[in-house]
């Protein structure tokens, strides 16, 4: 309130002192906002650590390597399979979503007529507005039953890649799998990556594009030489945001994935689990140790996500100060 009042004073009186007061107030407000981020992040970290310690002390097997989750019964539990599944589903989702997302945003910014571009932009953004539980239910009741053909196809023609190999003839029926979860995740992160990279591509200096075209470059050559190189740090950060969303997605994955605590590269057969999905599934009936153990797994997810963000920052930093300022 006070800053608003000061602002009015400043515009009516134009006195130097109140202008300075306005400056100081505004600086204070922004500083507080900035500091709040650190306070919240710090508070989350402290909460997670404090609540996780009892479970880590009660764990009878190694928290980092065990592929079982039984904190309330035998007190054997570990993060290995969950962390593996979290990373595997997220990177598979990225592999599916990034090409499509970049294709959409390049088409929208470089090829499509204005009206179609606007429409396509809205349509992609709409995907982000669908609640994740709807994606999960859609995955369980529609996608999985209709994906059996795709599973069989992938296993037959790409089965030589361990990721798509069949095991004990399990691909030919309804399968709650890592692959299914990745497809759902890919659709969920698509709009984030597409929307941000669309804005990045729009930022490219039109003079550069026209220069490339004037030098006789085709449309594709122009994109390759004038649009992509200055955009790539921004696109990387878009991809990293998408990855962050995929790593932390909870209910959609909990519904679709196989909930098996085992490290397994076969993505098409029933199996797989993620940290966030495990928390969603096990929290309701967890005992004291169980809750603490789930929080410990949340701490690991927090660290993984933080690491991903730091890597993204580093990539952007490396790419140069000019592009950094554009972000």
């Amino acid at each position, binding site marked *: 309130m006070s800053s608003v009042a000061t602002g009015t004073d400043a515009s009516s009186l134009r006195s130097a002192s109140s202008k300075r007061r306005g400056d100081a107030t505004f600086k204070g407000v922004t500083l507080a906002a900035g500091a709040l981020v650190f306070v919240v992040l710090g508070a989350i970290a402290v909460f997670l650590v404090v609540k996780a310690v009892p479970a880590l002390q009660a764990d009878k097997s190694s928290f980092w390597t065990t592929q*079982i*989750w*039984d904190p*309330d*019964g035998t007190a054997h539990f570990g993060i290995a399979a969950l962390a593996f599944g979290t990373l595997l589903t997220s990177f598979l989702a990225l592999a599916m979503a990034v090409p499509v997302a970049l294709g959409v945003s390049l088409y929208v910014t470089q090829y499509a007529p204005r009206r179609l571009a606007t429409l396509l932009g809205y349509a992609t953004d709409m995907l982000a507005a669908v609640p994740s539980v709807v994606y999960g239910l859609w995955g*369980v*009741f529609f996608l*999985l*039953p209709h994906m059996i053909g795709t599973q069989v196809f992938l296993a037959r023609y790409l089965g030589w890649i361990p990721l798509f190999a069949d095991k004990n*003839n399990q691909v030919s*029926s*309804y*399968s*709650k799998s890592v692959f299914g979860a990745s497809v759902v995740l890919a659709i969920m992160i698509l709009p984030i990556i597409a929307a941000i990279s669309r804005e990045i591509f729009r930022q490219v200096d039109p003079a550069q594009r026209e220069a490339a075209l004037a030098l006789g470059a085709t449309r594709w050559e122009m994109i390759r030489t004038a649009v992509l190189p200055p955009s790539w740090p921004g696109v990387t950060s878009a991809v990293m945001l998408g990855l962050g969303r995929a790593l932390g997605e909870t209910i959609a994955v*909990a*519904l679709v994935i*196989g*909930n*098996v*605590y085992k490290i397994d590269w076969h993505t098409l057969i*029933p199996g797989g689990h993620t940290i966030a999905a495990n928390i*969603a*599934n*096990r*929290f*309701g*009936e*967890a*005992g*004291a140790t*169980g809750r603490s153990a789930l929080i410990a797994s949340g701490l690991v997810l927090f660290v993984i996500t933080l690491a991903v963000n730091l890597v993204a920052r580093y990539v952007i930093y490396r790419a140069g100060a000019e592009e950094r300022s554009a972000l």
Partner: protein
Amino acid sequence: MKFPLAVRAAVVTAVGALTIAACGSDNNATSNTANSVGCASGSLTAQGSTFQQNMEKQWTSDFAGKCSGAQISYTGTGSGAGIQQFGSGTIDFAGSDVTMKPDEQAAADKRCNGKAITFPITAGGIAIIYNVKGISSLNLSPKTLAGIFQGTIKTWDAAEIKADNPGVTLPPTAIKSFHRADGSGTTSVFSSFEAALAGSDWKLGHDKTLNWPAGQAAKGSDGVTAGVKQTDGGITYAEVSFAKQNSLPTAKVKGTGDFADLTGANVSQAIDSGFTVSGSGNDVSGNLDFTKMTGYPISTVSYAIVCQKYSDAAKAKLISKFFTYVVTDGQSAADQLGFAPLPQSLVDKAKAAAGSVTS
């Protein structure tokens, strides 16, 4: 929380049926207590067992219809969450499929400034739901079920299944079992039954979650049933209402008696023969002995957990009246929703417990 159309329709029908019952019918053994139940008003919030959730919705809406000004909201968050919330004092009563552990009882007693009491409010069977083309009737013994869910019996024409079903032609379809991914009282009851009756053939112990060596896991009873619905050769365990919603058949299961169907009468009989009260005074918590159960042998009770005394007199009265209604007139709603009425022996005890809640 989820309330499929079929259940909603059933609820509407049941509400209608109850209204009619309240108006005149008196061939039900419990309806002669109708006048003594009485009303109270106020509002209560409760959480807990998802198993009893559909019953709670029915009861709370019926009770609100009977007694204007009574507003009771029950959310199915899981028995564990319900017990925890009750202990920390954020809800007025909890629903649970299991009795409290000593540390949970201590927390609940502390919250109540006295004693927290537990008593059964409904009974239900865990159905074995399957989807095998051409098979509409199936017998399964505890040992066969153990083999199916642990992955040692792999096809539907295995010798063990044939032995349970003499004269039935079974297909060589692969068995695809589905179990709960989330912690669940359903898993606890099913595994306790297996541990009691399959002997050394059952190696997974009994708990709300197990380390399954085979099969797929899905979230919630709707999740496992959806898996079975989509899979020829699929089988799972879930509340019988999910079998009805998906028009899937349920197996006859053998306990100490002969193979029995999951019916309200068979479940009530199982509880009558297999449930022993272990609590003292107004605490009607008890143990299930699956080896003693006649009737349908995978049967269980679901409890309410309340304080013996509430500092708020209106709240105490409402809880007392509501649960008196629940364990008497409310029992007739069980069958339509896939539950079973409590046997008379337990109704008497639960009614006494509900009536004892004071301020």
